[in-house]
């Protein structure tokens, strides 16, 4: 196992800059997820670690060794591809053992090792089959086995679960989590699915337009998203963002918006700075921190009911503030919610997030 380092890495394809001056360190034994929408540069970053793309500028180090211009075969890494890339003309045994074959291991030894890994992944009984003769979930595990069959410095995953159906994906995710706990491998995992990143990563790098927006632990990213982009990307459903007008009134911060009633918040230096730039702030509240208001609640937001979706253990209640500015509450009840045409949602000020006019987080008191 080894660490991975990016130093001012930039990758351009002609006019288009896929990755822009990105630097980060991944420590030995970390499981890092690169999370972001398509086209944000996460896959390009991963492929540069693998050596399948060469950076336009900057340096990449694996285990402290400069690998920027090293051929993939000389990096001693393992990678699981989105489409699995199982060789259709080889049976499972040969597929899994292929990395050992190119390392010159004798047939008997490499097949024994392949069987050993396959057994762990519960595909040991399929070794004679061709990839086309097994299910999607089994194909996914075969590609995983081929990556695990040799001791690599770093394990790279390029959206390895995106071709599975929802149920299998959950199962495979749990298995990967278990594997990471077991092996303590250094892994870099690309995904656009925030739940996958939250479940697997020791740290998440959220990427947008070629930049890393936030690089922190899942809990940190959930609790203190650095920007409205991160806030909107992590969490399901995502954080509600309400555009508000902020002003300092009697030494406190007063927030105003249509249908919003909120007690004045304590001022901080950071808030003062943000207000000096612009009074247009964004108020963020996660759906799980909203409830149906009883009469007399102090912090509320009111608007006509848009949708009321019962999902079993919880209900999603959405209100429409006009111009498609909707706010969704996640209510944990398995009862049917009987709601009037206009709904008032309540929240607590300790669960609100504030962002300045550029979308950057304004640190709360004590952060």
């Amino acid at each position, binding site marked *: 196992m080894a660490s991975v380092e990016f130093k001012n890495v930039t990758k351009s394809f002609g006019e288009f800059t896929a990755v822009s001056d990105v630097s980060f360190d991944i420590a030995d034994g970390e499981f890092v997820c690169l999370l972001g929408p398509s086209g944000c540069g996460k896959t390009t970053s991963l492929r540069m670690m693998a050596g*399948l793309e060469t950076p336009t500028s900057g340096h990449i180090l694996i285990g402290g060794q400069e690998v920027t211009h090293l051929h993939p*075969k000389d990096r001693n890494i393992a990678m699981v591809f989105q489409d699995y890339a199982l060789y259709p*003309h080889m049976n499972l045994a040969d597929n899994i053992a292929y990395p050992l074959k*190119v390392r010159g291991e004798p047939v008997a030894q490499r097949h024994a090792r392949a069987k050993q890994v396959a057994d762990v992944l519960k595909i040991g009984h399929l070794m004679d089959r061709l990839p086309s003769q097994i299910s999607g979930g089994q194909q996914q595990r075969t590609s995983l086995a081929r990556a695990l069959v040799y001791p690599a410095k770093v394990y790279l995953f390029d959206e390895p679960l995106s071709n599975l159906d929802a149920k299998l994906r959950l199962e495979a995710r749990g298995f990967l989590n278990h594997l990471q706990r077991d092996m303590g491998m250094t892994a870099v995992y690309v995904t656009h699915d925030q739940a996958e990143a939250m479940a697997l990563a020791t740290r998440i790098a959220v990427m947008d337009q070629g930049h890393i927006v936030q690089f922190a632990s899942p809990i940190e990213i959930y609790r203190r998203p650095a920007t409205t982009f991160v806030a909107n990307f992590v969490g399901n459903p995502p954080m509600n963002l309400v555009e508000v007008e902020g002003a300092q009134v009697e030494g406190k911060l007063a927030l105003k918006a249509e249908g919003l009633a909120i007690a004045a918040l304590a001022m901080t230096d950071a808030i003062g700075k943000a207000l000096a730039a612009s009074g247009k702030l964004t108020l963020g509240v996660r759906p799980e921190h909203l409830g149906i208001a009883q009469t007399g609640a102090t912090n509320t937001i009111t608007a006509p009911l848009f949708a009321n979706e019962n999902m079993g253990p919880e209900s999603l209640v959405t209100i429409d503030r006009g111009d498609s500015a909707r706010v969704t509450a996640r209510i944990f009840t398995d009862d049917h919610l009987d709601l009037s045409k206009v709904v008032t949602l309540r929240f607590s000020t300790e669960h609100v997030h504030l962002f300045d006019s550029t979308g950057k987080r304004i640190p709360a008191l004590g952060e």
Partner: protein
Amino acid sequence: MKLTIPAFVGRIAFSALAALIGAIFALPLLWFLFAPFNARAELGLALPDPWTLSNFVTVFGNSYAVQALWNSFIQAVGGVILVGAAATLAAYALSRSSIPGKGAVTYILLLFSSVVSGSAAMVPIFLIISAAGLMDTHLAVILTFAGGLLPTAMFILRDFIDSIPKSYEESAMVAGASPVQAFFDVALPVIRPGIVVVVVWGFVNIWGSFLIPFILLRSDSNMPASVAIYSFYSEAGTPIVTLLAAYSLIYSLPVIALYLFVSWKFGFRFFGGIKA
């Protein structure tokens, strides 16, 4: 589902029309089903009485006729090996390398290959072969066809390789394979169906060709079946029907067999501009 009466009639009419057209297409070929097995065959359609293989015996007794089939085979196989190998390498390079000017090369090849047809270029081809001292050799036919069929073969194969995910070779290289290993262990076996299609297509083209061997070859010992078949004419220029029929059938068999093979193996999908 119940069909309305007009729809039902319409469907029958469609089937009848399709069958009729099929029958019209079959008519000129019907003769070949009977004449080869009829020792007294003439140009008319007649059931053999009795069915016999005597025409075939005569053909196989004719050493010149057998030699010609063998010549066809040498020329077709030789051409196909060249086309298959050169087209595979070139198509792989066009698809997987980032050589500058790749697009321009492709465009120029496509242009030239459609402009320079055998019937338009027969004079310079004859002159090149004769300048190279290859006149009246198998190699003349093999090289000419390899050059002529290559552009199309390259495009068929390049499209095929483009449709294969790059992750095959990428995963091999990440796992430690050199580019050469990745090509032979992974890429080549995956491309193989495409190569088979190109090889079959090339074989059928060379095997059936008439004009190029007709102008490039002179001696009987080098003639392929397509030209040698004209030896089954009497001194007066009238065909010896019995032998022609049997020989035509034998000569057509490889083409029929390859067609059946391709349609069994790949479901005779449509693969681009099939004929040169």
